[in-house]
């Protein structure tokens, strides 16, 4: 090992640390005789840094020399920092040394742009070829495609790596122009599109020839910086939604902006960590829970509530749909209940085939009761002592919520980065969203749903108590129920008409913000 390798490792890690992605998931590959390494579909976290972020990969730059001058970036040309580089050989040695000791799951390679995007990519490909061919490394590799490089190089990179990513960095074109003058929209979008096409092509080749080389089998991801520009959460989530739907991205990462490049155009102060957390929660709702961005936010109400998680916030704004009966509600509807996640919803659906479920059963299945109890009934019963009075919830939640608690300037009307010529992106729901069955027909998720939600809050209590099914028509929906099971049996309806008492004020406000790592 070279004497100054430790020093350079420190510099190039420090330079890479603002890239948040460190997941090793998405690829599944067993080990093989004569090789070293395997990939596990769920990913494996090997350590957790002092900031609580998972360390799964050796996340490092080949060099932090850069000819670009992006204002938000620590490695920009005009920044006065120590510079260093690693040779492809050194990089391979580090990766193998760490991997054998089970320090890491693989490599996440990125780079500053020393001369040109193409020459940078050539060096990265050189390093990955050493790893894959000389060292027979079968572990996980995530590589960054350098914006503006030629397509042939992206293709070569994708055949060596499990995941590729191109960072979109800022959610609107105006922001991008302002802060990253060397990276045009095209420089970002073109490689993303190329990667999407290659992944699709590789998929169809693999369907025919089992041993066709896989192109980026763990898919493509990207990252956006949050809070460096006045873009709203609604713009960000709509962009993410279109990236998931149209570019088939596996992940969009959000990175709370940390003032590393002091510049007149950039905000100072603490990174908006809670906002970042809320965006991740919303991102999960969009990917796994059948929500669309326009159900969570709207043009008028364009930033996430920092005091309530987005699912609770949505539920409280749509109280008319609740409570739902866990022994009968569709899976898609269960997923919409705060406190019920994908795992517990699946367990409920399985378990209720065998017996009628009570609150104790739900608790054992992993339902977060402190949130769920406000929104469900078990066999027609409320949780003892629960009072269902939307007026209190409503007034408590809507009273004087600060619009921009991060101290961000008001939105300046930035246009969303247009990825898709011809029609605004993210104008509707994710097509695959299973929730359409139950919710699509009710007009939720359309731009005017905010009005509908307001109406629901003012509904007489008795109607709400009848449960989602009977309360729904009050939202002036067409009255068609997508699923036959949605209408309660006459007997059950009576059972659902439990007595409503005024709820203790503010009870729902105690729902605590939970801190979770970004990935």
């Amino acid at each position, binding site marked *: *090992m070279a004497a100054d*390798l*430790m020093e350079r*490792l*420190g510099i190039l*890690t*420090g330079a890479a*640390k*603002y890239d948040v992605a460190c997941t090793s998931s998405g690829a599944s590959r*067993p*080990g*093989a*005789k*004569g*090789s*070293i*390494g*395997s990939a*596990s579909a769920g990913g*494996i*976290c*090997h*350590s*957790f*840094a*002092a*900031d*609580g*972020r*998972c*360390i*799964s990969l*050796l*996340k490092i730059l080949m060099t932090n020399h850069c000819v670009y001058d992006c204002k938000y970036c620590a490695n920009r040309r005009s920044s006065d920092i120590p510079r260093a580089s690693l040779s492809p050989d050194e990089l391979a040695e*580090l990766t193998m*040394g*760490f991997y*054998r*000791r*089970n*320090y890491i*799951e693989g490599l996440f390679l990125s780079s500053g742009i020393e001369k040109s995007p193409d020459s940078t990519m050539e060096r990265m490909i050189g390093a990955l070829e050493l790893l894959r061919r000389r060292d027979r490394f079968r572990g996980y590799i995530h590589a960054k495609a350098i914006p503006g490089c030629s397509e042939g190089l992206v293709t070569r990179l994708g055949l060596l790596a499990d995941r590729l990513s191109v960072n979109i960095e800022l959610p609107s074109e105006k922001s991008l122009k302002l802060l990253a003058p060397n990276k045009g929209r095209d420089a970002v979008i073109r490689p993303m599109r190329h990667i999407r096409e290659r992944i699709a092509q590789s998929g169809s080749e693999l369907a025919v020839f089992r041993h066709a080389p896989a192109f980026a089998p763990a898919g493509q991801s990207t990252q956006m910086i949050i809070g460096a520009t006045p873009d709203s959460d609604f713009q960000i989530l709509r962009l993410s939604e279109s990236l998931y739907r149209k570019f088939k991205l596996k992940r969009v990462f959000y990175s*709370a902006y*940390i003032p590393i490049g002091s510049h007149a155009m950039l905000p100072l102060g*603490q*990174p908006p*960590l809670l906002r970042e957390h809320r965006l991740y929660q919303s991102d999960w709702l969009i990917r796994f829970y059948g929500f669309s961005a326009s159900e969570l936010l709207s043009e008028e109400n364009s930033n996430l509530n920092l005091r309530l998680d987005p699912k609770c916030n949505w539920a409280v704004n749509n109280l008319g749909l609740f409570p739902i009966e866990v022994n009968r509600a569709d899976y898609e509807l269960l997923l919409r209940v705060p406190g019920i996640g994908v795992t517990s919803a699946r*367990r409920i659906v*399985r*378990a209720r*085939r*065998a*017996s009628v*479920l*009570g609150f104790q*059963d739900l608790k*054992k*299945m992993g339902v977060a009761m402190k949130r769920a109890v406000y929104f469900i009934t078990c066999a027609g019963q409320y949780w003892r002592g629960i009072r269902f009075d939307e007026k209190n919830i409503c007034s408590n939640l809507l009273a004087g919520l600060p619009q921009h608690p991060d101290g961000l300037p008001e939105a300046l009307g930035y246009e969303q980065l247009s990825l898709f010529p011809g029609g605004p992106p993210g104008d509707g729901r994710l097509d695959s969203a299973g929730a359409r069955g139950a919710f699509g027909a009710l007009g939720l998720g359309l731009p005017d749903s905010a009005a509908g939600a307001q109406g629901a809050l003012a509904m007489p209590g008795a109607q709400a108590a009848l449960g989602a099914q009977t309360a729904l028509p009050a939202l002036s929906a067409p009255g068609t129920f997508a699923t036959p099971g949605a209408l309660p049996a006459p007997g059950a309806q009576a059972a659902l008409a439990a007595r409503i008492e005024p709820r203790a004020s503010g009870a729902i406000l105690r729902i605590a913000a939970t*801190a979770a*790592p970004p990935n």
Partner: protein
Amino acid sequence: MEIAHIIDGSFEGLLTSVFEAYSSRRFPAGICADDGYQLDFGQEQVHIRTDGAKASRVMAGILRKMGAAVYEQAWTAFLSNDATRHIKILRYLALGFQVGRALPDMLAEPAVMDVLELARPVARECNKLLGFVRFSIMENGAQFSEIAPEHNQLPLLMPHFADRLPDVPFVLHDSRRKLAGLHGAGQWRIVVADGLRLPGYSDDELEWRKMWKRYFDALAIEERKNARLQMSLMPKRYWRGLTEMQPAAVGAGCRAALPPESAKLAILQDPPAISL
């Protein structure tokens, strides 16, 4: 009079106990292994002699009637350190012989939930350890790591690392249970290891630990420091084996880092040639 089975603590022993319960038509109220379950007074003790043929019949029955997922669930629950695991698994399987493939869905049944709750922490700890195991490379080229898990994890960890490092001889030592998983020549096995005498570290082993620690420290973002989050995701009980969590004098204080002075059993002098 209630009876209690006494088994040898192996999974085959437990399956034999299931077999005997059915063939004698007497279900035990408790099952006692050699690791601590206390018998109630007034229980008649029935010693179960582990029988591979009977165990295989029970296993085949589970696979046929309840499916592989149930077998795996019972096996994972068996690795728990909970002293009541044997009787809970027996009740689980007994219900399974009645209801068949519906068993894993019956989450409202205590017998099913009990086993789920046994298996869950085992799987969770295994998931953590897949990442938290730290190997040292020894002067003879073999790799060594010491763990002290809550539950018996070697049967879950060995196949993972044997697959990942197919050509590397390694030893995974569970110092809590005094067991060692040995891998070499494409095979692995678990043996009783009361003490270990290790060869010295390879020349640059400590250098690699320093590199890793440097990487680990450089990756944290000062402005996002969150010790509580770090601790909840990487609880302190694992720190002993994590070289990056040791103070700057790398490896000092890390037991896994130091060759034990009082070693009794010598293994790993040569890459183990193992036959199964």
